[in-house]
C-alpha cells in the first residue's frame, strides 16, 4: 500500500525514534542508585524502563512489519555510525539539573510525536502510539513539576535550572533534524513532520519556562546540533554502547 520510497522513509523515522528512546533510556537508568532523593532515583529508573519499552515497541515494528533484524540485534549489534539517535540523548547524565532539563526537553517532544502518531495512517505505529502517549504524559508531568519547583526555589536552584536550559537548548533543537523522505510521510498522513513538531514544542517549552520563572533561550541565535540522524555522534556514544552491550557480547544467549 505504500511505495518503496515511503517505506524507506518510514524505516528511517522509526529507527530514529527507537534509537532516541533506547539511548535516553540507558542514560536515565544511570540515575538508578544515584538520584538526589529516593523519589527521583525511582522516577528516573521507572522512566528508563518505559523508554526501553518504547524502543522495543518501535524496533518490533521494524522487525515484524518492515523486514529489519530482530530488536536485540538492532539494539545491540549495530555500529555507532548506524545509530540515528540525536546527539542530545547521548550526552552523559552530568549533574541532576542537566538530566532533569534534558528529560523535559526530550519528553515534551516525544509526547507531541506520539500524540500525533496515534492518528498516523501507518496503523502499526498508530496502535503503539496510543499506548505510549499515556505513559509519556507521566514523564512530562514529572519533569515539568520539578522544573517549575526548582525554577521557583532559591537563587541557586533557579540559576542552575537556567544554566541547564542554556546548555541543553542547541542540543535539543537537534532532535528536529530533517531526514530523507520525510516529506513523503507528511504528505501521506503518516507523520506530522519535524518542522511542525518543533513549532509545537517551542510553544510548550516557552509556556513551562514562563511558569517556572525562567528565561527561554533565544533559539533563533542558536545553531541546532544536527548530525545524529545521519550517524554522526560525539565521543560519548561509543562508550555508552560498549557498556550497554557488554553482557550481550560476552554471551549472546544470556538470559536473566
Amino acid at each position, binding site marked *: 500500500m505504500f511505495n518503496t520510497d515511503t517505506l524507506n522513509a518510514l524505516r528511517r523515522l522509526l529507527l530514529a525514534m527507537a534509537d532516541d528512546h533506547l539511548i535516553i533510556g540507558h542514560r536515565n537508568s544511570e540515575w538508578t542508585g544515584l538520584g538526589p532523593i529516593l*523519589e527521583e532515583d*525511582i522516577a528516573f*529508573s521507572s522512566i528508563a524502563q518505559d523508554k526501553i*519499552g518504547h524502543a522495543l*515497541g518501535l524496533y518490533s515494528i521494524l522487525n515484524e512489519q518492515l523486514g529489519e533484524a530482530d530488536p536485540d540485534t538492532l539494539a545491540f549489534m549495530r555500529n555507532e555510525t548506524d545509530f540515528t539517535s540525536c546527539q542530545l540523548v547521548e550526552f552523559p547524565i552530568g549533574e541532576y539539573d542537566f538530566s532533569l532539563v534534558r528529560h523535559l526537553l526530550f519528553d515534551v517532544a516525544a509526547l507531541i510525536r506520539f500524540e500525533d502518531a496515534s492518528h498516523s495512517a501507518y496503523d502499526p505505529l498508530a496502535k503503539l502510539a*496510543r*499506548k505510549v502517549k499515556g505513559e509519556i504524559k507521566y514523564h512530562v508531568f514529572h519533569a515539568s513539576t520539578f522544573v517549575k519547583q526548582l525554577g521557583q526555589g532559591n537563587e541557586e536552584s533557579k540559576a542552575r535550572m537556567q544554566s541547564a536550559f542554556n546548555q541543553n537548548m542547541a542540543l535539543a533543537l537537534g532532535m528536529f533534524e530533517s531526514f530523507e523522505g520525510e516529506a513523503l510521510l507528511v504528505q501521506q498522513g503518516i507523520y506530522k513532520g519535524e518542522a511542525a513538531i518543533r513549532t509545537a514544542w517551542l510553544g510548550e517549552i516557552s509556556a513551562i519556562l514562563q511558569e517556572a520563572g525562567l528565561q527561554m533561550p533565544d533559539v533563533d541565535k542558536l545553531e541546532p546540533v544536527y548530525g545524529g540522524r545521519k550517524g554522526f555522534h560525539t565521543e560519548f556514544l561509543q562508550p555508552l554502547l560498549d557498556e550497554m552491550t557488554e553482557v550481550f557480547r560476552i554471551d549472546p544467549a544470556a538470559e536473566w
Partner: protein
Amino acid sequence: MVNLTTDTQAIWDAIATVMDPEIPVLSVVDLGIITDVQITEEGAVQVRMTPTFSGCPAIKLMEKQVHDAVAALGFEQVQVETNFDVTWSSNRISEKGREIIKNFGLAPPPKYNDQPDMKLLEHTACPYCNSSNTTLKTPFGPTLCRSMHYCYDCLQAFEQFKPI
C-alpha cells in the same frame, strides 16, 4: 468434541486463575489485559493480551502462565499473543478488580473519560481511611503502574494504581 460455548467459558475461568505478579491477588482477567479468546472447531485456542505498560517486565511471564493454564485443560494447541490492537487503560480494570486492589492496600485508579487529568492524582482517596486530604509525593513508585501518596488524616504513606 469441542463445545464452543462451555469450552470458551472454561478457558476464561482457567485464565482467571493467573494473577498479576505485581499484585498477586488480582487476576489478569480483572486487570483487563485479556482482550480475546478464540477456539476453533478443531480445538485450537488463541488468546490475545495487551500490556498494561509497554515496558512491563512481567508480560512474558504472564503469557506463559496463561498458556499453561489453558493447556492444563487438555488443549493441545494454545497460542498466546500480546499486541497493541486493543489499548489497555486503567478503565479496563473490572469493578471486582478495583475492590481487590483496594483491599490489597492500593488506591484503585479513578475512572476517567477521554484521558486522565493529572489533577486526579493530587487528592487520591486514601485506601486506609478514605480521606481525600492527601497529597501526591511522586508519580512513580515501586512498579511502573504505581504512584506514591501521603494521607494527612491517618498519617500513612500509600500507593495508588495510577490512572493511565
